[in-house]
């Protein structure tokens, strides 16, 4: 196992280097450098200002020198300045955008995976019933809908007509006037607290599983969960900082509902179908027949035996989705006025802001590589057959 992990790490490092090199040259090969795009078409900016801009950004150097300088700086963790927002370091821009993107897309991914898994489980169990037909047709229709149009319709319906939810944005400027905290601090606090609470709840449930008797097991699991949730809410209501931050966090949460709902409606069908297929395969297995023969209740056969086994492909898909969550989504961010990493990626590439584009792609590349690595490890842990094969 150790050798396997070491070999994978070396492969990842090499792959990352290739990825970085290819990304740099692809971006360099794009027509129109940023100085030409920003300055050449502005007659108020004389040629000497353009030359100065080229020198400042190092674009007057030969291509290979630029590449060498960039790689040396990159591996000394100096990601450089944004060409478009010079002299702002690219790390600053990523730090500004990343929390917003993570909170929105992680919430959305978890929500639509949960919804998709629950619906898929239901479909497989209710095969041939009217409910299956309705959910499948509805889910697939939403899955294939033209997303920018659908997102606008959601905005129009829930925000403009029903006035139930806000019209895009991630906060209400009126509520945030003279706010004591920048929005990013609140985003980060929300993210970390939710993560810690989730990990604690997960841990409690893992511990509870060791209790053999059903009633105390459930009691521990639920009591632990309630305690964690109370602690979470207590922070926001009673904690000194939390109480001040609460209205702002609530405002962000309120603005989160519509984009998350939209992403969930559009994406849950993919997970639903994956779960359904996986469940149907699992339900043909002998151990399901055995479970039924033992007289176990249907819901227990479904949730404990079939669904858990069917979870394997869904879990791997979820890990990969979480790993790529930081690249955001340009359409969602644009329609819901939630500028995040997706907007950074698109604008940096179209403007030729090479340091910002590469730094953003690198984060995504690292997360994707780590995600794949985790998936490989998870397969080994979740599926005993794979572990046996790995050991040979």
């Amino acid at each position, binding site marked *: 196992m150790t050798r396997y992990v070491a070999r994978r790490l070396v492969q990842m490092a090499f792959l990352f280097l290739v990825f970085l090199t290819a990304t740099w040259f692809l971006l360099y090969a794009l027509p129109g450098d940023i100085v030409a795009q920003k300055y050449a078409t502005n007659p108020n900016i004389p040629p000497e200002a353009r030359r100065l801009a080229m020198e400042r950004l190092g674009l007057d150097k030969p291509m290979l020198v630029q590449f060498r300088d960039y790689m040396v700086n990159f591996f000394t963790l100096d990601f450089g300045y944004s060409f478009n927002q010079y002299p702002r370091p690219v790390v600053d821009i990523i730090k500004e955008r990343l929390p917003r993107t993570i909170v929105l897309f992680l919430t959305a991914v978890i929500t639509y995976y949960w919804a998709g898994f629950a619906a898929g489980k239901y479909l497989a169990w209710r095969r041939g019933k009217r409910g299956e037909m309705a959910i499948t047709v509805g889910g697939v229709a939403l899955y294939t809908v033209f997303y920018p149009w659908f997102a606008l319709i959601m905005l129009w319906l829930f925000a*403009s007509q029903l006035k139930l939810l806000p019209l895009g*944005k991630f906060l209400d400027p009126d509520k945030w*006037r003279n706010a004591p905290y920048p929005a990013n601090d609140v985003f980060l606090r929300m993210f970390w607290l939710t993560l810690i609470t989730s990990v604690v709840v997960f841990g409690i449930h893992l511990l509870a599983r060791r209790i053999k008797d059903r009633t105390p097991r459930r009691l521990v699991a639920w009591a632990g969960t309630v305690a964690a949730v109370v602690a979470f809410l207590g922070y926001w209501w009673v904690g000194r900082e939390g109480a001040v931050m609460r209205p702002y966090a609530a405002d962000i949460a309120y603005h989160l509902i519509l984009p998350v709902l939209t992403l969930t409606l559009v994406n849950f069908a993919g997970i639903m179908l994956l779960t359904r297929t996986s469940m149907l395969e699992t339900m043909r297995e002998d151990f399901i027949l055995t479970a039924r023969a033992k007289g176990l209740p249907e819901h227990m056969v479904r949730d404990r035996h079939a669904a858990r086994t069917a979870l394997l492909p869904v879990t791997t898909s979820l890990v990969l989705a979480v790993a790529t969550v930081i690249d955001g989504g340009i359409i969602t961010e644009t329609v819901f006025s939630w500028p995040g990493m997706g907007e950074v990626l698109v604008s940096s590439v179209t403007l030729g802001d090479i340091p910002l584009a590469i730094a953003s792609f690198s984060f995504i590349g690292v997360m994707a590589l780590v995600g794949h690595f985790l998936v490989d490890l998870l397969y080994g842990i979740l599926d005993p057959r794979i572990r046996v094969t790995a050991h040979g």
Partner: protein
Amino acid sequence: MRHRLARWRWLAILAVFAMVAAACQTEPTEPGDTTTTTEAPTGTEPTETTAPPTAEGFTYRLAIFSDPTTTHPWAALDTENDVWTNYVNPGSGSLYGYQPPTYTLVPAMAADDEPPEVVADGDNWSVTVTLRDDVRWSDGTPVTANDVVFTFETIQKYDGLGGNFPSLWPLAREDDPATADVDESSDGVLSVEAVDDMTVKITFNFEPGLAIWPFSVGVAPVFQEAYWRPLVDASDSAETFYGNETLGYPNTGAFVTAEREPGAFWRNEAVADYWDRGAQYTVYENGAVEYTSASGTSETYGEPSGEVIAQWTEGPYASEALYTLYTDQNSAVLALTDGEVDFLLNPLGLQRGLQQLVLSDPDLNVIVNEQNGFRYLAFNMRKFPMNVKEFRQAIACRIDKEFMADTVLGGAAIAANSLVPPGNSFWHNPDVEAICSGLSEQERFERAVELLKQAGFTWTTEPAWDPDNLDVLPQGEGLTGPDGEEVPELTLLAPGPGYDPLRATYSLFIEEWANDLGIPVRAEPTGFSVIVDEVFATGDAALEWDMYILGWGLTPFPDHVFDFFTTDADSAEGGFNTPGYSNPEFDALAAQFKQAKTLEEARDLIFQGEAIIAEDLPYVVLFTTPIIEAYRNTVSYPFTTTLDGLQAWSGVPSAVTSS
């Protein structure tokens, strides 16, 4: 048991939602929850004047479509120069400024009605400007000559800075010995001295024309020494200087920057004791301005004639300007119709598709103005056959701009002939006519053929007009130039339909019209950056393209008429003259223009220059576009007709009123 648990689960979820909902209801005492609802005095309709407004006012809400990147006004003019940052930054102040809505040059910090003349001063030339004694920075301190000196010295310290600075504050530099007699890039401001607290002397190392004084240095930014000096002293480089957070920096405008939440909003607060509050402005049709200051002193800039087109008492009436970011125009229009914002700030105005939505709302007003810019077809005159005047004229003759604008583009474009749009009335030359203007399609075709024949072009198959089909039949084939050189296939670069459907469509029609004549033109819709990259390439790469369609946004002072076409501005050498046009007669006019001392003299030269360009056609000006804007009837403006729309004045925050 299981069902009971399920019920509890739902109860728990509902409880969490209830708590989140409760948290959303912020108490009125929470910080940042106070929304000012007191409205400013009304009655500032365009044709009326009112008593000076009070400091209390409403929140003027504007939508922006991209995130402003800096609070630093110096960086906003240099490295972070973009329209959104400049919309929200109140700027700083200048000696002279442009008067809305006519762009007349009027005094700002300067006291003299007319910019003082430049006089010989030993080997150099200088201008002495007296400052007004009533202009105040937003912190209440007076503007002095030392602020102007400090601004210039800062630019000197950072070696001229970049972006807009070299054109606003050009620094005098040592002549390059090799090109000393023609090196114009060394021309600039030699020194700025404070003669006394209220008098500043600006010395040039050359005799500047209007383009430099007053239209560059006169409108260049001036920054307050007291605020900026410590930051400049602590910064060895412009990069370090730009790294400072400068919210609330003093300026001479009606608002100061107050708050910025990146990715969400920007807020400016009204200056409580704004020095110009209560001043009265009356603007006449010919651009003349009658001004009565807050203290009651009256001045008239220009000779008033024609109707009064705008009249107002300066505010601000709004207590704050709140700029909210919407990254999608559709959602911004929904925000406008729902009353979330009063006005959409966008340099391109509203998309035509959204116009109907806005027009159908009784609470919204729609205004249409002309853009200060044009789209054009350019020829690479460094190459055959584009270097033949009659060839360019023949193509230009075939282009029926009115047909394109009115019929093909359905009114989305306005046919244009002049390099200065009609909205810039003082500088616009109404006598510039497009070649073949007013001719029918058949007449245009016949005239184009005649032009090509005149130049000595021949065909293997000569094109002809088929009166039965009312079309060209047969099309020309085997076109050969006067020297027997066959006309090669030519590429017409144009932005793709995704970027600009108007120009993409235009390129296809030009292709067809040229092909009728036997000119093998192939339209190639491509990326904007691809075109920019090709046509601004220097050295031999400047020979690689044939024709292209792009556009320019312009400034009120139309020095572009010369900057785009003089020999020394050849884009192959890094300038803006992409066609590589070279005409000694035109260059001589350009040189005179740079020395022109009066507006009338400069205008006459512009008119002469335009006439030459209209004949030689390095560019064929094709069209301009209207800028469509919408605002809620909860606000009103002292004027709505202005070149480039209200966005050109950042939504007029200092004079908008709540209605």
